[in-house]
């Protein structure tokens, strides 16, 4: 049965790769971009670039308005209370580093930070390093056999000593929604701050940061069908007020003399230097594009693709899924076959999937795996992509076994 994406033609990149014989199944690493975003990017440069928040002149004002309009669109996308709650960074990783530095003065030796066993490096290393700097304890919440954070154990680990909880909404390896709302409630009950890493979650369904109840939510534009080089950090107004400034320069300053300076509050106070102006503006175009899609149809299409992916994998001998993925992706290993060999032969056949540790080394180590293959889906993928993948997989396994 054909499973065609009605949005595929909106993505010139996926079509170009197609024409080159490449089947793109690596959207969890970065997504292809809609034409609307490309038009916006070109349009900004072709109509005259200017810096933002600095100049009175017309090009400067035009750029600033477009830039701030994107902030408004992001706030709307995440249902933040105000666009003042959205900080632009370089990516999820920078957003989380900003928090780890910005919140540092709030921690004292012996305090605890709670993360989960499935965190990718971006939501582990900044907290790990903060813990090392400040003499904090980094507490790791274990997973159950499906690949979901074990809530019962989490409830005992989140304690009065917990000062912050940082957790991924959707694992980039396990493809499973995590019980973030429940975890945030546990953190709140202990007076701890909560950080949600939405790097993967943000693009599969709409999420409402106010309903989630988190203090911070971090994600990246490039996975959300937007340009790279832009990250988003939502912070609830009261939580943002607790952040110490961390990078200095440019328009983040309110007043400076040689020996002292005063800084702006969020968001501008946390956007030192010239931001990725064109990319921020073009992200706005991506969000407009996404907002114009039938959300239920997108979710339905992705679910049908995902079901077909899982069915195809389970129909083959010797394939072990990692966890029980619910959405967007599946990671697997094959008995007696090295993932690197399999990746090599998939690459030879024009199948673009990810192989290795997926920037989540501790998770894979804890599962006793040196690496895995990950197939990840975007809304532009269709049934034929999966058919090509499975043909290539069978061929590769035939050669390797």
């Amino acid at each position, binding site marked *: 049965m054909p499973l065609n994406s009605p949005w595929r033609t909106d993505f010139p990149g996926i079509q170009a790769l197609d024409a080159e014989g490449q089947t793109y199944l690596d959207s969890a690493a970065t997504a292809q971009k809609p034409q609307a975003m490309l038009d916006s990017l070109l349009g900004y440069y072709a109509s005259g670039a200017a810096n933002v928040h600095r100049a009175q002149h017309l090009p400067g004002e035009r750029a600033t308005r477009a830039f701030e309009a994107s902030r408004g669109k992001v706030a709307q996308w995440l249902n933040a209370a105000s666009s003042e709650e959205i900080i632009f960074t370089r990516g999820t990783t920078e957003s989380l580093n900003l928090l780890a530095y910005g919140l540092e003065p709030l921690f004292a030796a012996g305090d605890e930070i709670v993360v989960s066993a499935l965190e990718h490096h971006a939501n582990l290393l900044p907290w790990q390093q903060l813990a090392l700097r400040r003499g904090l304890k980094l507490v790791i919440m274990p997973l159950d056999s499906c690949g979901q954070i074990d809530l019962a154990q989490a409830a005992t680990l989140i304690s009065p000593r917990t000062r912050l909880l940082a957790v991924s909404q959707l694992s980039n390896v396990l493809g499973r929604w995590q019980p973030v709302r429940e975890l945030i409630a546990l953190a709140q009950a202990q007076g701890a701050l909560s950080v949600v890493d939405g790097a993967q979650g943000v693009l599969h369904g709409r999420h409402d940061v106010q309903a989630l109840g988190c203090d911070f939510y971090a994600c990246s534009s490039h996975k959300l069908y937007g340009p790279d080089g832009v990250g988003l950090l939502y912070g609830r107004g009261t939580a943002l007020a607790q952040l110490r400034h961390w990078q200095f320069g440019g328009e983040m300053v309110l007043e400076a003399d040689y020996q002292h300076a005063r800084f702006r509050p969020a968001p501008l106070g946390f956007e030192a230097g010239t931001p990725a102006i064109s990319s921020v503006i073009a992200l706005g175009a991506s969000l407009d594009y996404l907002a114009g899609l039938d959300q239920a149809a997108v979710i339905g299409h992705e679910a049908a693709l995902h079901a077909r992916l899982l069915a195809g994998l389970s129909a083959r001998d010797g394939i072990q899924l990692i966890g029980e993925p619910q959405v967007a992706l599946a990671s697997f290993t094959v008995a007696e076959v090295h993932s*690197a*060999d399999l*990746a090599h032969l998939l*690459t*030879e*056949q024009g199948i673009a999937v990810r192989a290795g540790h997926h920037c989540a080394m501790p998770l894979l180590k804890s599962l006793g795996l*040196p690496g895995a293959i990950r197939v990840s889906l975007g809304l532009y993928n269709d049934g034929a992509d999966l058919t090509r993948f499975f043909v290539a997989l069978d061929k590769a396994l035939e*050669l390797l076994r």
Partner: protein
Amino acid sequence: MTLPRPAQQALDAFAACPGWEQRARLLMQWGERLAPLSEEDKQEVNRVSGCESQVWLVGEIQESRWQFRATSDARLIRGLLAVLLARVDGLSAAELDALDLADWFNQLGLARQLSPSRSNGLNAVLQRMRELVAG
């Protein structure tokens, strides 16, 4: 400069390979020809980091000629190591230094295996070889 005999063999074999499947099969066959490394050789100090698979590389200089031994837990990497060793084994440090290994893999039709991606091990192996040779 004439190619070492194993290198010429590799070149002849791979040049006769029309498609990726035959090339993959051939790589795996070449991989099986690698001299095994002892458990002692597979120490952390001989492990090349930066590879998605595990790779161990041992280099020894004998009468001013370099002899390398290498292996991996991944079969295709073993094949790539085999064709690499076929080209470099027995060269002097100066010859090794002057060798264009990218060109070698290009001639074999394996240039893409030298992709600069950090998960690709072969570049890390080449780098380690250069470090060993540089002493």
